[in-house]
């Protein structure tokens, strides 16, 4: 029986030794995929789009790729409100530190005229090889947006513990389900750095959350169907103080103004914008990265957005209380 046991071990070991380390390629066959990116800003006639192709490299560092993936020669058309706007292709210079040395191929138009009507928006790109990429959306169809700021001016003795903003739209149709809102309160300021004046801006969180790792700034989220945003005065105070954090000479800072900005975007762009880098812990190992696209026949993003903003009054005595000008 001892021989049986030994024979078993030897047999299994011999079998196993036949293949001690198999090689496997984490890469499948290269897949050629085209990427269309076009974000329409509805308050300007100038719009741009890009088309690139996927690529592969030897190894696993994509930054070693030097063959420019952005392609020219495609026909891009934008359809909306019974109009067709054609994009033109051109090339623009890249930054000096870009890994691609040739000018970047882009497509542009300066003939886009927005409409206050709720219209369908469609983009179609026909590539030089005949492949078609397309995407559909709805133009942000708001005739006008009004924003009220309550409890202003921002002062040392505020009327309320929160600074509230409400907004509404005049629309030709009551349907605004496809509109996503990203409210922002921004402090614009100038820093005097050795005589050099640097323009900067500071976003104000809605509040600071108490967490185990200290105070965490919480910013407004992108949401559909919301009509108001409230910023805690405490958050504004902290944001004002953080502007010159660690800087003893407060008078080097000048507050230029405060703006409440409302970004309105369609669902496709909102999804893409919301998809942020996923934070993992040290031990969890995630093998796939999240991705989102609304491009038929390829990857990328097609969406549109607009920005409405108002100046928010801020009291001089409040600015001075931080030592700023």
């Amino acid at each position, binding site marked *: *029986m001892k021989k*049986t*046991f030994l024979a*078993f071990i030897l047999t*299994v*070991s011999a079998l*196993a*030794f036949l293949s*001690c380390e198999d*090689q*496997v390629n*984490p*890469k499948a*066959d*290269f*897949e050629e*995929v085209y*990427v269309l990116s076009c*974000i329409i800003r509805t308050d300007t006639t100038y719009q*741009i789009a*890009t088309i690139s192709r*996927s*690529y*592969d*490299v030897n*190894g*696993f560092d*994509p930054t070693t*790729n030097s063959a420019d*993936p952005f392609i020219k020669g495609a026909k891009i058309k934008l359809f909306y409100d019974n109009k067709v706007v054609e994009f033109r292709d051109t090339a*623009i210079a890249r930054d000096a530190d870009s890994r691609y040395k040739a000018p*970047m191929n*882009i497509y542009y138009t300066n003939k886009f005229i927005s409409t206050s009507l709720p219209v369908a928006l469609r983009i179609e790109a026909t590539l030089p090889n005949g492949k078609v990429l397309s995407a559909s959306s709805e133009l942000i169809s708001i005739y006008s947006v009004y924003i009220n700021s309550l409890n202003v001016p921002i002062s040392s003795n505020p009327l309320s513990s929160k600074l509230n903003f409400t907004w509404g739209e005049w629309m030709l149709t009551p349907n605004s389900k496809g509109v996503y809102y*990203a409210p922002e309160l921004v402090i614009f300021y100038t820093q005097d750095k050795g005589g050099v004046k640097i323009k900067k801006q500071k976003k104000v969180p809605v509040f600071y*959350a108490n*967490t*185990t*790792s200290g105070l965490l*700034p*919480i*910013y407004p*989220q992108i*949401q559909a169907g919301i009509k108001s945003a409230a910023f805690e005065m405490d958050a504004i105070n902290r944001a004002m103080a953080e502007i010159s954090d660690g800087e003893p000479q407060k008078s080097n800072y000048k507050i230029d103004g405060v703006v409440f900005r409302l970004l309105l975007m369609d669902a496709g762009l909102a*999804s893409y914008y*919301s998809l942020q880098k*996923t*934070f*993992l*812990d*040290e*031990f*969890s*190992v*995630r*093998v*796939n*990265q999240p*991705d989102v696209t609304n491009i038929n026949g390829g990857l990328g993003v097609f969406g549109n*957005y607009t*920005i409405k903003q108002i100046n928010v009054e801020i009291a001089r005595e409040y600015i001075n209380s931080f030592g700023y000008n």
Partner: protein
Amino acid sequence: MKKFTIVLFLIASTVILGQNRGMLRGFVADSTSGEALPYANIYIPEIKRGASTDHRGFFLMASLPHDKPLTVRVSYIGYETKEYFMYIEPYIVTDIRVLLKSTGVQLQTIEKIGEKVAKENATDLSLQKLAIRDIENLPKGVELDIFRALQKLPGVQTAGDVSARFYVRGSSSNQNLVLLDNIPIYNPFHALGIFSAIDPEMVSSVEFYKGGFPAEYSGRLSSVLKVVTRDGNRNNFSGKGSLSFLTAKGLVEGPIPGGSFIASFRKNYSDKILKKFRNNNSIPADFYDLFAKVNYQDDEFMQDAKFTASVFHSSDKVFNNNIKREDFKWSNTTLNLNYFQISDSPLFYQVEVGYSNFGGERIPNESGAKGVVNEVNDVVMRMDFSYVYDSKDELSGGFKISEVHNKLILENFRGQQKDIGSKGTNISAYLRYKLLRWSFLGVDFGNRVNLTRLAGGGSSYFLEPRLGMTIRFIPEFAFKSSWGIFMQDLSTISDENEVVTIFEPWLITPLYLQPSSSIHYISGFEFTPTPELSFNVEGYYKLLHNISVLNERKFFPYDNDLISGKGEAYGLEFLSRYMNWPINLSASYSLAYTFKDVDGVRYAPRYDARHTVNVSLEYDFGYGWSASAVWTYTSGMPFTQMAGYYERLTIDELDPGQSYLTSYNPFILLAERNLGRLPDYHRLDLSLSKKIQINNLKLYFDVSALNVYNRKNLFYFRRDTGERVDMLPFFPTATVKVEL
């Protein structure tokens, strides 16, 4: 379904009238410790009938002739066989208490005849019963581990060396119900899931249903692992201590007036060994578990009754002592009060109140990771009964009330926290009838009625009918089949893209989703040409509906965290065993196909291994020496390959002043999900054990070598670097145990 339940009642009422022969009821225990011996064999040669003790050491044989003397032969692995010559009293239950003396001799042929006869019409398809002795003979590795022992069974899959989590017949690991003395444990793992939290020293027996489990079990879609703990030595005080490269542990047990107690404690003292499991990356894990149980069984105070109280606690911490890195902690706690009563008639019943708590937390510190707080508090009250008719048929039933409070606080990428947990009560009742009156046929049918859903309570009617059948055409050959519908209303939100997860947070299925359900169709046969040799073949087909899947396309706060998916699994399993002292050889092969369907995409999940082979050989050299070898082969697991890269527009802020022309960054282009396959996995583990006994002192030495031929089994690739991360390399280890 109502008709199904009514029929069940009618059958029960027709046979309740026929008590006209004798019954034998017995309790089998170790003569030294008084500890119950689960799955001992009872055989009466005059009538060629047999039985097995249950996990409490009890057996009951009905419809015995009372007009002639019978030989009752009781045997158990490693114990002297005992024979009793007795007359069975008519119309009443004759009780017998059997104390067997340990010899260390292995199971002999005559005893297996008893086992074989006891199983002749048992509806035990997909059921594996393991006494702790069966598990102890496997290579211990770093720690003897029940979960890892299960992974050697056909149909049970693992995600790799680094995890004791198991996947049964194409189901995810959260679809396995793990019961410790009937109380569920939600995360029974230590050290990132590398080891199970249940110390085998406290275990008496294990019952493992791979599918088609009967109506008394509920709450999971796939399998049931029922761990029954020991009662402790009723006669003498004794203690055990053991040391491995990872943990030190101790156990004390002994008598108390009218009963016994047992207490065990295990603690890791080093995390160095864990690095081997993670490609030499440090795991600063600190864990312990403890278990204590008292039982009281005094016939003067409570006749034929037994009261037990037990507590279990496991705690894990992974603290990095670095504010830039996140910390983790999680724990399980169970409390159990059980009252078990044997009545004068062939009736057993038990009343049980239990509590299970799981708490887990990811503390992000300043790492950039997101915090998670998860808590499950489950209070269970249940009553079960079992009645054996003179016809040998059995009726059992019961009800269960489970109050679950669940908290799951998640933090989104903007730092906002939200508790998406809920609380509720599940009320259910079941009835089960086992038709065992004919030796060639066994039919087990039952039904469980769930009256409420956990999420928000309220009424929600869900039936879980179950059916099992065994037809023994000839003594050597039996055909078995089972079918059932299973429901699960509490699951984990595990990210399938993560190959290593610290803990999987539990969540009551929200009301916007239907409870998950599955249907099992299982058939197979058992062939035992000789008492030493057996072959089992099982085929299964499993459908999964409404399985809760993490919503990978949750972009906005109001998007649901979970979405509903479907699943399908089917396969064929072969198991052969040859047990003839000093050899114990088993070989198994499983062919399995598993698919998930989420968001219209059908893919094979990570644990879909097409072919699995396990070969295990144990050899007893005598004089306390024994050796074992286990070889495991699994064909490659699925993974998603890369198909290239593309330039992706990155929008940090939708700022009016930002130019998107320079905001392109390389992004990995993935091929179709899980279409690639990792290389095959195989590994050979060897173990050599020596037992030395000096009077009452027993010493156990075990030397194991894991992955003896240093197979480089691939765990995963790092996509950013292409670095290959392998599983456990060649790894020698040893344990020593002292028992007094």
